[in-house]
């Protein structure tokens, strides 16, 4: 989080960045309370899982959760870079179609007899290419990223359909491993998602460029005047988000063992944005962490899964997911006020540190 901590605070209890946090709370109870206020969704998540578990007996079991994690993994892989764009004050709505493009490209390459690794590489490249177009329009020409990526959402869908007018299928077992295979008993996509989240988290907290993402999102003008490269960083984030969507496409196709260019990843961009917002990352930029993304993604997946287990129909699940988003944002806004008041108290506290200099 921040760079310098007061000598009295142990560095060990650090959490990846929320925005500036007031000084260490006096008691562990208060600290825990403060932490929960900052992460209301996590509390809700635990309550929800426990509730479902109690209501349904033990249906939550591993086999079921595995499916939840597979879905969540694909969303998380893309939500991580999209969240970074949101933190920097941008957005990427094109990821649904980019996923489709990456998927059909991977499918085509595999069917041509190339190795699955080459196919994944091509999907990454195809996605990155979409990202470059987004990046050039949004950062070099300074167009609104909302409009640019909304346009690209439609355009890239068309490109995907041009690449593969007919649905592809049967890619073979080797490629299928990418979608459903286990490594050490854990699904490969989940491992990839964890790797992406970790890498993004480390980047955001441990590198200057990562901190600049926040600076740009909070105050672009001030960042520019502080010598931050306010174009290059968002540029690279767009490319990353494109590449991640391409990868997600390859995984999805491998898992489905088919690649319908028209339907693949339809509405995916909304799931990604919903997860990002659910996690508490503000669309206004400058705030959020990869923990938030993880919580958002899991919450969404487990909510749907829980409702399914409880026998709620898909239609009502949609209603619930939508309301959950609105509720989560309302809660986030509410806790923001509480947090603000807490910080105000902290800042007006007579200062001990000044005496010692």
């Amino acid at each position, binding site marked *: 989080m921040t760079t310098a901590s007061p000598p009295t605070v142990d560095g060990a209890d650090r959490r990846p960045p929320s925005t*500036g946090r007031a000084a260490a709370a006096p008691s562990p109870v208060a600290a825990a309370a403060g932490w929960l206020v900052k992460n209301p969704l996590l509390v809700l998540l635990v309550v929800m899982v426990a509730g479902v578990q109690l209501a349904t007996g033990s249906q939550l079991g591993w086999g079921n959760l595995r499916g939840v994690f597979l879905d969540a993994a694909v969303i998380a892989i893309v939500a991580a870079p999209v969240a970074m764009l949101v933190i920097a004050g941008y957005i990427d709505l094109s990821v649904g179609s980019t996923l489709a493009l990456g998927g059909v490209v991977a499918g085509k390459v595999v069917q041509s007899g190339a190795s699955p690794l080459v196919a994944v590489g091509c999907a990454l490249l195809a996605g990155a290419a979409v990202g470059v177009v987004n990046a050039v329009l949004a950062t070099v020409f300074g167009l609104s990223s909302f409009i640019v990526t909304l346009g690209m959402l439609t355009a890239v869908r068309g490109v995907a359909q041009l690449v593969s007018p007919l649905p592809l299928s049967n890619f073979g077992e080797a490629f299928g491993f990418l979608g459903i295979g286990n490594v050490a008993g854990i699904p490969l996509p989940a491992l990839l998602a964890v790797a992406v989240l970790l890498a993004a988290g480390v980047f955001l907290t441990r590198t200057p460029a990562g901190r600049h993402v926040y600076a740009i999102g909070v105050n672009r*003008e001030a960042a520019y*005047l502080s010598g931050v490269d306010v174009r290059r960083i968002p540029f690279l984030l767009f490319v990353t988000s494109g590449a991640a969507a391409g990868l997600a496409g390859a995984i999805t196709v491998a898992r489905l063992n088919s690649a319908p260019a028209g339907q693949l990843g339809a509405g995916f961009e909304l799931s990604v944005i919903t997860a990002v917002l659910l996690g508490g990352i503000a669309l206004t930029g400058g705030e959020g962490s990869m923990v938030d993304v993880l919580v958002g993604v899991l919450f969404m997946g487990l909510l749907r899964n829980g409702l399914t287990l409880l026998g709620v129909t898909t239609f009502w699940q949609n209603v619930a997911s939508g309301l959950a988003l609105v509720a989560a944002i309302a809660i986030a806004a509410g806790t923001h006020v509480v947090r603000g008041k807490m910080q105000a108290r902290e800042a007006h506290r007579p200062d001990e540190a000044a005496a010692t200099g």
Partner: protein
Amino acid sequence: MTVSIRGLTKRYGPTLALDDVDLDIAAGEVHALLGHNGAGKSTVIKCLGGGTAPSAGSITIGGTTYDALDPRSSIAAGIAVIYQHLSLIDRLDVTENLFLGQETTTAGVFLRRADQRSRAVRLLERVGLDVSPDTPVRQLTIGQRQLVEIAKALSRDARLLVLDEPSAALSPVESRRLADLVRLLKAEGIAVLYVTHLLNEVVELADRTTVMRDGRVVWSQPMAGVSKTDLVTAVSGRAHGAAVAPRPVDPDTPPALAVDHLEAPGLHDVSLVVRPGEIVGLYGLVGSGRSRLLETLFGRRPVTSGTVAVDGRTVRVRRPDDALRAGLALVPGDRLRQGLFGSLSSGENTVLRVMSLTARAGWRRPRAEQEVFRNTAAAFGLRPADPEVPVSRLSGGNQQKVLIARWVNDRAGTRVLLLDDPTQGVDVGARAEIYEVLRQVAAERGLAVLFASNDPDEVVALAQRCLVMRRGRVVDDLDMRHTGEEQLLDLIHTELEPS
């Protein structure tokens, strides 16, 4: 109708912007309000216009007493504030602007355009503005827009007209026309609160003058028998006896900053030098080019021709990043919009650039960053010295220290520190501390400090030399050992006289 302000007090967090202000404005009176930047004039205006609610005190207008006004009740009470930044809507025409929010309608729905237009013609005539009511506002000059705003105030039957530095952006001819209009409105029985920096206007127009300093009314008298010198004395207050005579810098020292025949949009043939350890003030009114010069040196604005050298090496600055690499740093004038990252911590705000300089192989080194924060926090007396506090919670003075620390520390390698209005929105005590910090960085680290200000008090308190700017040029280079505040005020105000 008389407007009485009683005990008006406004707190912004720990800062006291207004402290128990009393002010009376009689009908048919022009009441001038004088004071330096940060004296509290604009806060009084905001309280009157309903832009902010006072922490204590009351405003009485025509027999009704208000504890606080909002924009709507302010208009309803007969107050019209003409802000420096005018609030007309560019895309609408004059008539539409005049009646915005109080449209004449049939059955509450349908605009009566013809009706509005003929009323607009009468209003424009009253303020002496000779343009068609169908002219889009964006085609008008600043002076004309101001008259439209005044006409709008008249259409609302304003009884108190508040003018916030109305002549700052006007040509001499427009200024004279405005003065005539003010006299006319006064004769109609309207009360006018005239906020300004310019003493000539006060002498010419005001019936009564109130001077504010540090949020308090320090002087208030009818203008009969009051001279310009009296006003200068009242405004300056001579309260800066503590100013330490700065150690003069040997004029043979090679300059840390040398600007040679710089030409840029809004700047003409600017040449200047600042030596290591020297603090130089850039003094001029709004629009004189002092901020523009700093922003141009820092790469925020383009250079047309001329050279800039830091420590004897010519540098080519196209972006702020280039300037920073060359050792040229700017603490911008608008702290909130251009300097601070509000929701980030003060630690992070401090080390934002240093982070890249201390990083190894792309990885941050938290320990090195912490050390930079600790050292600068201690050296500059930052309070609280806690890196985790969000910077938005610090007082103005401490925020300013954070911004100075961003550029001046053991790692940043800054050679020349540029500051635009270094004590904007900073209260008195903190102001002295900022001055101390700047003297310290000049003396101990041998930095060249160049700051822009329109506050003569500040120039006297801080600068060893003062460069006076007017219309984009440096017109004077004064040794502050032999120059007082009165001279500065006189210089700038006489020079501004319309010829």
